[in-house]
């Protein structure tokens, strides 16, 4: 049995190496335990006989790889997830953003876009949207297209509306979308200043100077090295006194960049680059 585990470990490494060499997607520094789960789950779903079939189909069938790619990236999200985060951002960061002539915001790992639209709504209500350019990026083109379309199942809207209200939303949430049968379409006006594009935190570089970066619940899937790579990109992208927002169980504290960032809100994982909360006010 010990042997089996060692062999499974080698097979997983080989598969990730094959994906990288053939397609350029680099999962080699993802946290192993959860990527293994997702690979196993995919193999069951596709009724594969074993690793040999998996490896050969990944290499020879692009469609097959694209299905695997969807499985490997975790795209579970919701609008105004963690409402207390949005409340804190409004109170502690928005006053500073109001002092800036224009804003560039990077939403890294935006998945199907729910949290990008949440930020767009927050910025609109704060009167900041018109001077903002949002870059929403994800490594997965299929998911990115969903984000661009902004179409969501209507059965999620009860939760989203509750989250919006808890997050301190000022308007009626239903003003931000049009309902069509079993889904809703987010308003065009929310999309005007959002640029959706392809970017991979494992392999791509800096593409602009940012005032704020959101990267929430992405780093948890990376190992330490890849976390440091991503945080390095964020550090290099942020202006001095720029703001970094991570997921509620993520922290910059044990990374290479711990000393560069100061807590703006420790519990909500909002950090200022070379600045404190007091200095932002």
């Amino acid at each position, binding site marked *: *049995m*010990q042997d089996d*585990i060692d062999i*499974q*470990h080698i097979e997983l490494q080989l598969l990730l190496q094959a994906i990288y060499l053939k397609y350029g997607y680099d999962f080699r520094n993802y*946290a*192993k*335990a*959860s990527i*293994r*789960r*997702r690979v196993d789950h995919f193999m069951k779903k596709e009724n594969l006989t074993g690793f040999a079939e998996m490896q050969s189909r990944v290499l020879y069938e692009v469609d097959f790889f694209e299905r695997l790619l969807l499985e490997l990236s*975790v795209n*579970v999200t919701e609008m105004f997830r963690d409402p207390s985060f949005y409340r804190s951002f409004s109170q502690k960061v928005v006053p500073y953003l109001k002092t800036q002539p224009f804003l560039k915001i990077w939403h890294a790992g935006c998945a199907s876009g729910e949290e990008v639209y949440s930020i767009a709504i927050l910025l609109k209500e704060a009167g900041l949207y018109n001077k903002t350019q949002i870059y929403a990026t994800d490594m997965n083109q299929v998911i990115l297209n969903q984000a661009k379309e902004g179409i969501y199942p209507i059965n999620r809207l009860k939760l989203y509306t509750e989250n919006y209200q808890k997050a301190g939303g000022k308007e009626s949430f239903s003003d931000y979308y049009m309902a069509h049968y079993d889904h809703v379409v987010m308003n065009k006006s929310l999309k005007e200043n959002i640029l959706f594009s392809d970017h991979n935190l494992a392999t791509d570089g800096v593409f602009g100077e940012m005032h704020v970066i959101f990267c929430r*619940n992405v780093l*948890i*899937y990376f190992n*330490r090295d890849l*976390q440091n790579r991503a945080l390095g990109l964020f550090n290099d992208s942020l202006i001095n006194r720029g703001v970094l927002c991570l997921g509620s*169980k*993520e*922290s910059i504290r*044990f990374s290479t960049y711990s000393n560069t960032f100061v807590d703006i809100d420790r519990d909500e994982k909002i950090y200022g680059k070379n600045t404190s909360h007091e200095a932002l006010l």
Partner: protein
Amino acid sequence: MVKIPLMKHYYKAVVIGSSAGGINALIKVLSVLPADFPLPIVIVQHLHPEGGNHLPSILGAKSALKIKQADEKESIEKGWVYLAPPSYHLLIEEDFTFSLSLEAAVNYSRPSIDVLFESAVYAYHQHLIGIILTGANHDGSQGLKKIKEMGGFTIVQDPKTAEADAMPTAAISNTQVDKILPLQEIGIYLLQLVNRTTL
């Protein structure tokens, strides 16, 4: 005295899964263990998404062990009891650190016991003790089976002593478990098992 089987090998960690009625059951098990219990204990207790942040202090008040919510990338140390944070899957990496995941629920549960147990098998191989306590669903029975198959030790709460018997019943029917014990005996049995087999 509880009779302890002769062990060929030693243990490095304990994983516990509990659901409905689990908080009282966990208190019963943990309150028996001394502060110098030599293995880390990692627990998935199913909770309401917004209700779980007080669990470490609830359990801590009744136990000599240090209890905390597991942080991502944290190293797993003996003397500690780690709890899965509410709404996240908790996994153990091969370098004995934690990772968290927001993947879809497994067995309608996030955190899921199966997810923790299956990842723990990859990290600890046969040096693992798995325990299933009270619960009203079937989570954990796949993971417990993997622990057993790998040569780890498996304990299930006697369903007759469980507030909800579905989860221990499912675990027993899915795996030839090593021990089925009434709730009040699990802690003391664990202590003796570990004292006997820890290097």
